[in-house]
């Protein structure tokens, strides 16, 4: 066993990956692009369906609920394959490329999870807020926009940050429809060089690196939006240190 492990470590050669660097760099852009598009559209969808699920009108409530249950109840891989292989070719008669189907699947999936986050954020607010706004004479939509959503937004920030990180990792699944993301680059290198450890280690490191950066950004945004944030003690914009938690 020992000999095997020593031989194994001697056989690892990261230099062979250098020839394939452009694949990995391209992969990072695809991964980030899919994540950003999926997240942006997901939040819009989530807002619509999250509010829809809370609606009193049955024809809005039930479709929203079915949408959320479907996309939360089935694996993302199934959704990606369903959209890429079945839905889009049936509607358009041809495939529109991996980016369209990948972004669509990620948006719809992210939308369902975001809808639940938004619903929970709104329902966690005290009922009195809505009642107070209504008693001031605001219509329901106006109260929602000016009173409820700004307060609920603060509570939604941490779970929305988690969702972004989860989506970043989930974007690796589009590799099954031959989207040229980081994992696909690793697979290509595996096929070309017959080596498994180096490409996958690199892919894992890249994902770790990306999630680490996103975690830092999310932590900063979370602090900025936390209820204990004091604007007068605002730190320098790019200081990500923990020293400014302020008067806790």
């Amino acid at each position, binding site marked *: 066993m020992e000999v095997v492990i020593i031989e194994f470590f001697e056989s690892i050669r990261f230099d062979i990956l250098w020839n394939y660097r452009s694949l990995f760099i391209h992969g990072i852009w695809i991964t980030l692009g899919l994540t950003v598009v999926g997240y942006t559209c997901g939040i819009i969808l989530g807002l619509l369906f999250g509010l829809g699920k809370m609606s009193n009108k049955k024809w809005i409530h039930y479709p929203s609920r079915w949408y959320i249950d479907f996309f939360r*109840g089935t*694996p993302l891989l199934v*959704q990606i394959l*369903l959209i890429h292989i*079945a839905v889009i*070719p049936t509607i358009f008669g041809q495939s529109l490329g991996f980016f369209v189907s990948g972004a669509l699947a990620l948006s719809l999936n992210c939308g369902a999870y975001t809808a639940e986050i938004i619903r929970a954020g709104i329902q966690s607010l005290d009922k009195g807020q809505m009642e107070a706004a209504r008693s001031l004479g605001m219509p329901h939509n106006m109260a929602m926009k000016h009173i409820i959503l700004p307060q609920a937004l603060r509570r939604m920030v941490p779970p929305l940050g988690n969702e972004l990180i989860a989506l970043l990792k989930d974007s*690796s699944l589009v590799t*099954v429809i031959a989207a040229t993301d980081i994992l696909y680059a690793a697979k290509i290198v595996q096929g070309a060089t017959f080596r498994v450890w180096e490409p996958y280690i690199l*892919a894992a490191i890249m994902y770790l690196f990306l999630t680490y950066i996103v975690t830092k950004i999310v932590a900063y945004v979370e602090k900025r939006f936390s209820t204990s944030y004091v604007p007068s003690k605002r730190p320098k914009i790019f200081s990500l240190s923990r020293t400014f938690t302020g008067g806790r």
Partner: protein
Amino acid sequence: MEHIIKVLPYLLEGIKYTFLITIVGVALGFVIGAFAGLGRLSKSKIIYWLCTTYVEIIRGTPILVQILFIYFGLSDLLGINLDKVTASIIAIAINAGAYIAEIVRGGVQSIDKGQFEAGDSIGLTKRQTMWYIIWPQALKRMIPPLGNQFIISLKDTSLFSAIAVGEVLYQGKAYTAAAFTYFEPYLMVAVFYLAITIPASIILRRVERRLDV
């Protein structure tokens, strides 16, 4: 329409693997997670950093990367042809283990400090306090997130179609390749997963209400 009925036997065959991998994998994952989660509360620096590294690496990389890593990498390292189902169970166990470690840590930390102190003051050792006082209380609080993790892991088993394990999605894929039709089989795959996850979440909600946590 005929495909909807024709694909059923394949999917029923696949669901056996889905359940096998999920149940065994999550059970092993719970064992790993219990140790890693308690390890993250350990005062020993070595154990703490070992467990933290494990949790951070697994939670920071996509599960598909881990699956390919374990299936191809582990076979390469050990020089054997790892059985696909075994590799899948290992992958689910390691992945779920990291998430369960955080659930365990959260559960134990949510117990009031007074409970530890009470255990100490009546002369129990640390281990006894953990085993007889903290763990039973923490376990009750862990049940809802553990149930969620089970459902997540069940959906994650669909990724094993990437290494050709014959679970539900793979069976559906195989059928589409033979029948040259895509919409109905994939829809049935989605329905199969829904048929498991929706009742599971309803049961989970009931258990939660029963436990009153």
